[in-house]
């Protein structure tokens, strides 16, 4: 007999050895393995269901109400035909515009300090820590802060107060993404610039910042997308307005607050408008997410 010590008389070939090393589908260990695999597939399905349900609802309800009138007309009174949310759409652009005008320069300058002039210092890591903490402050608390600082000081609800609240929410996102983007620029680029005699300002403005621009833009787009859907900090800073915006120092309608107000009314035509507004908000967010992805990919 010329068999290995592991083999039995039935399977004396090496094929038999391999067969016995295979897992039995009915053994507890393999069974547990299969059951857990099924469970995580179910988890993934559970996670996708609400997304599909929300998108489907918004597309179906909002899509049926979609027309150009939405952007050219004012919100309708209850139980009437027609109307739109032109003023709220412009209001969203204005408040997000004000927020961006404050947060983008501040955020990028702060990021330049953290990544170029203070990299690796204890100060930079503390500010990085505080940036994360600031991004965790609930948006409604930021709204309360903007109310206290701007509305109480100026004496009226306004687009500026809303824009300020949005700026506070956008700032940590921009600082964090811009700092990471700047840190990705190779050290050699900075050394070459300094070697040519560039000042620190010239190095940053002519070499580092242009090189890091695409990922910085991604962060800015994410911040703008988040801000355009924010509602909580606007309901008592920008408030609402049924008419076209006349300036930045009076109450102004925004798309997100319109969705909130109209979703909670009992009137069918206003509820439909809320769904159409949601569709526009979701479209803005989706376009920003896909757009930011494309910028990074092209790089």
């Amino acid at each position, binding site marked *: 007999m010329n068999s290995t010590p592991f083999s039995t008389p039935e399977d004396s070939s090496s094929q038999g050895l391999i067969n016995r090393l295979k897992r039995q589908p009915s053994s507890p260990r393999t069974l547990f393995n299969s059951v857990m695999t099924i469970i995580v597939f179910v988890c993934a399905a559970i996670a996708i269901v609400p997304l599909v349900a929300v998108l489907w609802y918004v597309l179906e309800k909002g899509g049926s109400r979609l027309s150009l009138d939405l952007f050219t007309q004012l919100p309708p009174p209850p139980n009437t035909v027609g109307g739109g949310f032109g003023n709220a759409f412009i209001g969203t652009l204005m408040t997000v515009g004000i927020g961006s005008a404050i947060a983008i320069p501040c955020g990028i300058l702060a990021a330049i300090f953290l990544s170029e002039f203070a990299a690796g210092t204890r100060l930079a890591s503390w500010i990085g820590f505080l940036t994360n903490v600031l991004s965790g*402050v609930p*948006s409604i608390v930021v709204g309360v802060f903007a109310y206290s600082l701007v509305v109480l000081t100026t004496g009226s609800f306004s687009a500026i107060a809303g824009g300020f609240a949005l700026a506070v929410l956008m700032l940590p996102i921009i600082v964090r993404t811009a700092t990471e983007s700047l840190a990705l620029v190779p050290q050699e680029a900075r050394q070459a610039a300094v070697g040519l005699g560039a000042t620190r*300002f010239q190095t940053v403005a002519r070499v580092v910042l242009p090189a890091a621009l695409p990922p910085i833009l991604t962060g800015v787009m994410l911040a703008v997308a988040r801000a355009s859907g924010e509602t909580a900090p606007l309901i008592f800073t920008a408030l609402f307005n049924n008419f076209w915006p006349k300036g930045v120092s009076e109450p102004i309608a925004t798309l997100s607050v319109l969705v909130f107000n109209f979703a909670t009314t009992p009137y069918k035509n206003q509820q439909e408008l809320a769904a159409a507004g949601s569709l526009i908000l979701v479209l803005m967010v989706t376009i920003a997410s896909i757009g930011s992805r494309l910028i990074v990919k092209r790089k």
Partner: protein
Amino acid sequence: MVVSPNQNNEPMQRHRSSLSRNLDAAFVWLTGGFASLIAFLLIAIAIRVGVDASPAIAKFGLGFLFESRWDPVKDIYSAFPQIYGTIVSSFLALLLAVPVGIGVAIFLSEDFIPEKIQRPVIFLVELLAAIPSVVYGLWGIFVLIPVLRDMGKGVHQSLGWLPFFSTSPSGPGMYVAGIILAIMILPIITAISRDALVAVPIELRQAAYGLGATRWETIFKIILPAAFSGVIGGIMLALGRAMGETMAVTMVIGNANKASISLFDQGSTVSSLLANQFAEASGLQVSSLMYAAIVLFVLTLVVNILAQVVVQRVNRI
């Protein structure tokens, strides 16, 4: 005679003018100023809101946290039901979202599906996080509440002897808020847990497979323990988000000023109280709302700082 190229030129200027140097230093200081703005903002939020809340803090003291009276007519305020609602709704959300979120994170960090399908799924989960809260609220009112009300009635009939299900669901309520919050924090748990799972060194996995462990023995005994603190950090960040979430909760929780043990009952949270009352409030009511905002600020601050500490410790390893 060899002429050096520079001989006929002006002598090279070796130093920058003091103006140029000062401008450059000013630029550094300018960026430093904006960086410290972030720290300043956090302190400013605490001080501004704290000062505006001080009349209410002086009048109601700590009793504000433990009594259940919100009476604008008599100007007496306390926010126990809202604090209770904030904590209950966010822990209910964690209870639902943590198992699913970790499951999805494992699903997306292992090689269950080819990478070509994996990437779009990761993108979809990220999109779930980007959808505005108010849109979830709208969907909650018109889709989720009708569906859950019927399911909730069945649960109440069969399990009504449990205190958590002791009232009949009337539509909006604590359970809807918990479920909608669970949907909203799921992507946070998934994204951060996945980062932690992917960061586990491949050698650990190879060693476990080499010893004959199955895939799930490797996950449970090697990978999850190694990624444990990252997963905990993600869960805590999600908790912070759930406690501060406003719009979706305000639209589905019912906004009743009571703390009920039954999840089918209506309730309210600190953020829904602020969203509902702030625009029309005046006098001591504004101050009391500011007091409630401070409570929420401190709650989320503690949770977020703990989460940051945990996550940063993971990054250092």
